[in-house]
Structure formats: structure tokens, C-alpha cells
């Protein structure tokens, strides 16, 4: 009986409810339907983890860019054309063989939209939010990443308007790859810090 209820279906009337709300807000002149469409297009197609992957790949191939990125993430991200005014509250956390960073928001679901897009359901879910701070290594294992005991784990709980993105380690054996090839290796999960980047 208990477990049956954990994944309750969304009320079938959400579609109708939201349509009704949308038409009311349009009719009252509070929102512009064309702007709504443009907003959907923005979040579906213009932001997403590909933005972050470009930042990471650049940092891998350009040590001076990496230094700027770690010192002032908003400015360095703006160099690649991503909105500087968003980045101003952003920090990049470098993973190394000695230190592994991961990001969570226990109180809600804060996430670096400009560089990663909207967060996946698991990031917003109660299981991840509750466990990342008390059992980070257990959580990482569920993502397939077992860290050696001697690695320091840093969990960043996004309690304010600071947004964190992880700069994963560049995998070995990728010396001959171009910046564009490297971009394709960088997964969303590696920039949240629940995965490493593998050589393709």
C-alpha cells in the first residue's frame, strides 16, 4: 500500500487548469502570448548544458581562460557570449584528483540556469536534496562514481543567489582532441558534480 503512492499520477486536469490560467492572464493583458512562446523557445533551445560544456572545454584547452574563469566566473563566461548579468552571481568549482565538488540545493532547487539550463527532475527531487549533504559518497555511488576515501568531497548547498558550476577534470588521453570535440564529452552531470567526464 505504502509504495504504491510515491509516484502518484499528476492530476489529469493540470492541462485544463493551466490553459484556463493562461487565457485569463492573456485576456487581462498581464502576459503576451508571443512572449510566452519566445520564453518556451529560450528554455528549450537556447540555454542548456551545451553552454556550460563550451565553458569547460575552453578552460581545458586555454590555461589563461581557466585562470580567469576560476577568478571571475561571470566575466569569463561572458567572453563566450552568455549573459554576463546572470553570471555575476556564479562561481566555478574545480575538480582535481584530490578534491571533488558537487552541487545541491536542499531548500528548493537552485541551479545555474544560464550555463546548464533548467535542472532535471532528479536534481529537484526529495531523494537528491535530502541525501546529497548527509551521504554524498553514497549518492555518487548511485550515479556510478565511487571516489577513493582519500579524495576530499565538497558539497555546495545553494542556499543563496550564488550559483555553482563544477569544472570537471579533463580525462586522460584527450590531448589530441579539439575544443569542439572536447565539448561533446562534457555532460550535464559532470558539471553538477555527480559524474566525471569520460573519454568518449
Amino acid at each position, binding site marked *: 500500500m505504502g509504495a504504491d503512492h510515491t509516484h502518484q499520477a499528476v492530476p489529469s486536469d493540470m492541462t485544463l487548469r493551466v490553459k484556463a490560467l493562461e487565457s485569463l492572464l492573456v485576456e487581462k493583458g*498581464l502576459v503576451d502570448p508571443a512572449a510566452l512562446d519566445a520564453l518556451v523557445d529560450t528554455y528549450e533551445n537556447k540555454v542548456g548544458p551545451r553552454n556550460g560544456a563550451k565553458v569547460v572545454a575552453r578552460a581545458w584547452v586555454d590555461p589563461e581562460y581557466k585562470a580567469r574563469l576560476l577568478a571571475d566566473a561571470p566575466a569569463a563566461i561572458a567572453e563566450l557570449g552568455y549573459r554576463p548579468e546572470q553570471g555575476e552571481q556564479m562561481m566555478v568549482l574545480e575538480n582535481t584528483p584530490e578534491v571533488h565538488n558537487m552541487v545541491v540545493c536542499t531548500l528548493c532547487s537552485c541551479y545555474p540556469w544560464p550555463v546548464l539550463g533548467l535542472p532535471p527532475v532528479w536534481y529537484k527531487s526529495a531523494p537528491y536534496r535530502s541525501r546529497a549533504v548527509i551521504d554524498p559518497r553514497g549518492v555518487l555511488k548511485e550515479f556510478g562514481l565511487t571516489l577513493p576515501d582519500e579524495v576530499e568531497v565538497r558539497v555546495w548547498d545553494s542556499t543563496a543567489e550564488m550559483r555553482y558550476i563544477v569544472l570537471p577534470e579533463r580525462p586522460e588521453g584527450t590531448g589530441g582532441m579539439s575544443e569542439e570535440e572536447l565539448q561533446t564529452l562534457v555532460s550535464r552531470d559532470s558539471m553538477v558534480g555527480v559524474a566525471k567526464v569520460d573519454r568518449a
Partner: protein
Amino acid sequence: MNGIHDMGGMHGLGPIEVEPDEPVFHSEWEAKTFVLTRAIGPWRKWNIDAGRHQIELIPPADYLRMTYYEKWYVRLVELLVKTGLVTQAEIDSGKPEQGSVRQTPTVSVERVPEIALNRFLAPTVEPGIAPLFGVGEKVRARNIHPIGHTRLPRYARGKVGTIVIDHGVHPLPDTSAHGLGDNRQHLYSVRFPSRELWGEQASERDFVYLDLWDSYLERI
């Protein structure tokens, strides 16, 4: 508030379920709920803290049962009515009340790129506001239990950490969420050993970093 949303450290909430190739939105209504909220934001009837608090006010059993965008829908309706942008009668009927004046949307297509990711945050530099603590200083997170909004999670209260970064000046959510002023003050990244938070069961090589305001901290 010590609500269900403050779930860091809880057990029993189930496995982490990852959906392969997850779409940005799972349905039209999710997308619309999200962008309606974004498009109403620039009316500036509520700020980010009030918006977060409204979700925290969802009764705990519903909070756990609802999907993410169901909560956004509930929040949007509650705040539209609470701030008077829409009346409850209009929500119920789906039609503007007789005599209601038609507005001009604040967000046009042209403004979308500008507002899409903008949360209207105040500048973080304000030389007139001095930090109460310094980088490298050991501090204790205060043992507070406000019934209103706060961003100091329960699991860190009373615990000792070290300030590692001064993030500059930020509005205090505890007042900002309730229309009691920005109360701008320094925000710090504070590093807590997991053993301080969770006892000896934690690895001595694990650390949790929280962003905490001056008002959340006290000298040891």
C-alpha cells in the same frame, strides 16, 4: 520555517531516479506554468524570496506528493490572488471580472532575451555595508527557528564552520520574503566539516559549504 522543504539530511525519501534523455518540459502545461511565472515576474509584485516562501507554505503531504511544476502552479495562483493581479473570482470563472481594466504586458517578445534569465538581483557591492566576519574566521550558525522564511537549513544550526569566501552584500531572505525590507548584508560561503554536521559516521574528508548571511552567524 522548519518546513518539509528543509529536507537536507532526511532519510527515507527513496532512491534517486534519473530519467535518460529527459526533455526540458514533460508536457505543454509544465512549459506554460514555468513561462507564465517568468512572464509575470517583471510586474514586480513579489520577489524571489516571497516566491520561494509561497512554495514552502504548501502543506507537507502535498509538497511531497506534487510534482515540481504542480507546486509552481499552486504558487502562481496564490501569489496572483494575494497581490491582487487577479481575483479569486477570476481564477474560479476563468474570465476577467466585469469592469477590470485590460493591462499592457510588461514582457514583450523583444524583452524576452533580457528577462529570460534575469532575476532582478541587487548589486553585490555596497562599500557602506561592512562585513561582520572575515574570511578564515570560525563562526557558529545561529540556533534560530523562525516561523517565516529563512535560508539557514536546520541541519547547520548550532554548528561551527569556517568562512571561506565573502560574497559581498545580498538582501536577507528572512525580511525580504515578507516585505520587511532588503536588510542587505554580507553573505559568506561557510565550510562545515561533515563530522560537525552529522557526527562520527561522516567521512572526515567530507565538507558541506553553505552560503550564509551575517544575521545567521555568531562569533564562537
